[in-house]
């Protein structure tokens, strides 16, 4: 009994130390939920672990099979998770990026190429096309 107590006490004392050490290495990712009233497509613990698998699975189904209206959709993630201040899931910052889809990734050193093609801004609409260029009619 007393040994267990000592262990607990030691743990309680040590914990802040661990935290401080962690903070010294890298700031914990700041996750800001843009639409707190809404429901994600799965519970947060499942989302944290599985969102990459969900996206890759659905990407093939939409692209190859033409599946539309599925629960998982990258555009839907962006629409619901884009920041209220920047309108985007990316912050555009070089250091300590805090956009929803980049804070964790920067922390975990994951680099996505999705945004080469996929629009990170919610509800984005491209401006009118520039006048027909030379060469569009040979």
């Amino acid at each position, binding site marked *: 009994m007393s040994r267990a107590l000592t262990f607990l006490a030691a743990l309680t004392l040590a914990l802040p130390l661990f935290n401080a050490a962690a903070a010294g290495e890298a700031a914990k990712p700041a996750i800001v939920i843009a639409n707190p009233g809404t429901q994600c497509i799965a519970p947060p613990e499942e989302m944290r672990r599985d969102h990459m698998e969900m996206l890759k699975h659905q990407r093939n189904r939409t692209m190859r099979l033409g599946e539309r209206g599925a629960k998982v959709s990258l555009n839907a993630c962006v629409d619901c998770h884009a920041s209220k201040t920047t309108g985007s899931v990316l912050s555009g910052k070089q250091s300590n990026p805090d956009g929803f889809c980049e804070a964790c990734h920067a922390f975990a050193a994951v680099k996505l190429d999705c945004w080469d*093609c996929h*629009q990170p801004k919610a509800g984005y609409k491209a401006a009118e096309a520039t006048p027909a260029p030379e060469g569009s*009619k040979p």
Partner: protein
Amino acid sequence: MNAPDNKRRALLATAGVGAAGLVVAPGIRLIEAATAADAPKTTLASSKVRWGMLVDTTKCKSDCNACVTACNKENSIVEEVADPRQRSQWVRKIDLVEQRTGKQHSLPMMCQHCTNPPCVDVCPTGASFKRADGLVLVDRHICIGCRYCMMACPYKARSFVHEPLTTQNPEMPRGVGCVESCTFCVQRIDRGLQPACTEACPEGAMLFGDLNDDNSAIAKRLKEVASTQVRAELKLDTGVRYQGI
């Protein structure tokens, strides 16, 4: 013999559902149970459909670029490119002149959505593919940008994106290092709309629809009028047909 077996199965099935409903413990993911409960309505491309287009070149005006403009807007092909020759073109206007008579024809040229697409044959990664409903697309998630397909295409219908983009519409992702081409506006036809070019043509020269459906306007028209497949000798069985050339 059969009846008791079935009963037992039915009982087992109910027990299974009960268990799934009750014992959803944290960490145990019952994917079947979850999707059955709140599965959203989804649609898939069907091989019963064969999308195609009939272009009436007698109505197509040489000085009109409406289809190209509409395509660029829908698919946000709006970026500035340093070298205009590198600009993406999903559809372009072509003028044909009969040398002896001087008779002019104008027509839009784009991916012909072949039944036997050479671009798919040559693709080393399987990124160029044909969807069940006949659309020939690039799965840009696995395109490595080798551009074999651009060489293989007899219609010069594909483009390569040379520079990073930021102006994509969410419905049509496009990006550097990949080949792209006309998709018949897949993002629109999957919602029951017409391709942007077809809708925009002021002369009504483009007719889009299901070649397999005998009652579709395009199938009926193809039975009435003479139509041409460009470079029919290649036997690619194009989805795009032209009338009047």
